[in-house]
């Protein structure tokens, strides 16, 4: 079988879909597409922990919000030209914070880890809301300035597309690297990982730092879409949505989370136009997918591809 083609097919689709929008997309489409790629980066970075390492963090919004606030507040204070620099500072800050939080939470197992990450995120959300003199409180921050070049939806989309693509490419390399193989090993059998001479905690912490850094980039980019940010970016429903989208798309596949985000946001947009009960419809779709296809949308397509392949592929494997 043409292995190279199979590995590259998702990338081809990625560039075809998100690249063509640069030439064909209207204002509204570009706005939606910006959200999809940025939240897609968030979800793929989250999935380094969840689908790959088997760590369910319920608090990744902390790094998303942090990235957004660092970028937003810096641009607001120092001017639009600082926006791009702030995008570089955001992941550094997030990685620093992740070392601290990771050291405290990653030694706990399963549900305790999940609960602690949730608690941290809610704590930061609380601070963000209450400390209004610094963060703008409930209102968040509006009219975040950007450099001239990035003004306008299309320019900003192209800018985001380039950064997101580089980030996703790096995460894709990680997924296929020795380190990625160790993370998958940790998910399946952490005891065995210790008994091949590797320190489980250290690998988990590095995964947590990497995931958090890329999440902050996504948060920082989001600050530029509507030029406004709000404390809800920290709140637990933000983390929860990313988890849902990842499961919807398929957590065992690298591009699954991005597909989940795209479906979720498109449904929200399309159904939201015709009924105010859109979340009910999305909920029903979620339940159906999770119950019938626990491997997500990617799982569905693989299922049918498998049925199809079995008809012709018998000769190879008698």
């Amino acid at each position, binding site marked *: 079988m043409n292995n190279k083609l199979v590995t590259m097919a998702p990338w081809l689709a990625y560039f075809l879909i998100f690249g063509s929008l640069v030439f064909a997309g209207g204002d509204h489409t570009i706005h939606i597409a910006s959200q999809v790629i940025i939240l897609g980066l968030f979800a793929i970075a989250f999935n380094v922990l969840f689908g790959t390492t088997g760590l369910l963090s319920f608090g990744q919004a902390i790094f998303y919000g942090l990235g957004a606030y660092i970028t937003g507040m810096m641009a607001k204070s120092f001017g639009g030209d600082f926006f791009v620099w702030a995008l570089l500072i955001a992941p550094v800050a997030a990685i620093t914070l992740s070392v601290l939080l990771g050291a405290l939470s990653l030694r706990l197992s399963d549900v305790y880890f999940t609960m602690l990450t949730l608690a941290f995120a809610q704590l930061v959300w609380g601070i963000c809301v209450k400390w209004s003199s610094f963060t703008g409180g409930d209102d968040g921050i509006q009219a975040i300035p950007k450099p001239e070049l990035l003004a306008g939806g299309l320019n900003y989309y192209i800018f985001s597309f380039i950064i997101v693509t580089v980030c996703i490419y*790096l995460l894709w*390399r*990680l997924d*296929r*690297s*020795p*380190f*990625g*193989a*160790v993370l*998958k*090993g940790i998910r*399946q*059998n952490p*005891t*065995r990982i*210790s*008994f*091949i*001479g*590797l*320190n489980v905690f250290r*690998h988990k912490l*590095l995964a947590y730092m*990497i995931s958090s850094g890329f999440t902050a980039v996504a948060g920082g980019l989001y600050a530029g879409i509507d030029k406004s940010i709000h404390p809800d970016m920290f709140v637990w429903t933000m983390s929860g949505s990313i988890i849902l989208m990842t499961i919807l798309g398929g957590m065992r596949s690298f591009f699954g989370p991005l597909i989940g985000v795209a479906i979720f946001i498109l449904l929200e947009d399309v159904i939201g136009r015709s009924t105010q009960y859109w979340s009910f419809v999305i909920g029903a779709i979620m339940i159906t997918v999770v119950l019938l296809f626990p491997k997500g949308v990617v799982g569905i397509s693989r299922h049918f591809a498998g049925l199809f392949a079995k008809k012709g592929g018998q000769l190879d494997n008698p």
Partner: protein
Amino acid sequence: MTTLELRHVNKHFGGLHVSRDITMGIEQGELTAIIGPNGAGKTTLFNEITGYITPDNGSILFDGVEITGAEPENLVKMGIVRAFQVASLFIDETVYDNIYLAALAFHGKNGNIFTNRQTYKDVAEHCHFILGRLGLSGKENLKAFELSHGDQKVLDIAIALTMKPKLLLLDEPTAGMSPDERVKMTRLIRAIHEEFQLTTVFVEHDMDMVFGIADIIRVLVHGELIAEGNAEEIQKNPAVIEAYLGHEVL
């Protein structure tokens, strides 16, 4: 030369005394069987030696170096490697990838984040050597969960061997196997013991196997080491007959 030395090792689980003042010395190149009834503390002893649990008191020395309380991953780097009673595998991965992961760890590539894992020739050669030696060639593309029970146990040992152990500990290598598989496994253990110049310790219930291949047999009962010696000595030892075998086994 003594490879592994235990000095007055004790361990309690609540009121249960699972290791009672165990003192023993395992010589380099020895193939040792540890036998004893269920609940005698054999697996606990393995767990203490491999760093999975720490003894309450006493000390464990490896090549003359104190290792009591050391972490498993550091002991693996020193050459103490184990296989498990229930094969401990990366169950969703292929046979090849199971060994590959161990080989990556052995060659210190585990921290490489952005390199493609297929680029390491030395690692790949290492894997193919292990696959071939343990008779897993041809099965390398099967997922671990697709293997027979016997092959899963072999793969578990393959992972351990990939780490180039000096001291190899096998916890019931033939547990749950068919008679055929038992014979194969017994031969395999004897062969790799010599070929890789190992010091091997294994826990076993199958007495034919124990008396067939072990140089030295050590008997644990209720956490206590009650006898050690070669097959003949053990079979004639009154304490062993009394406490464990119940009748002379010949």
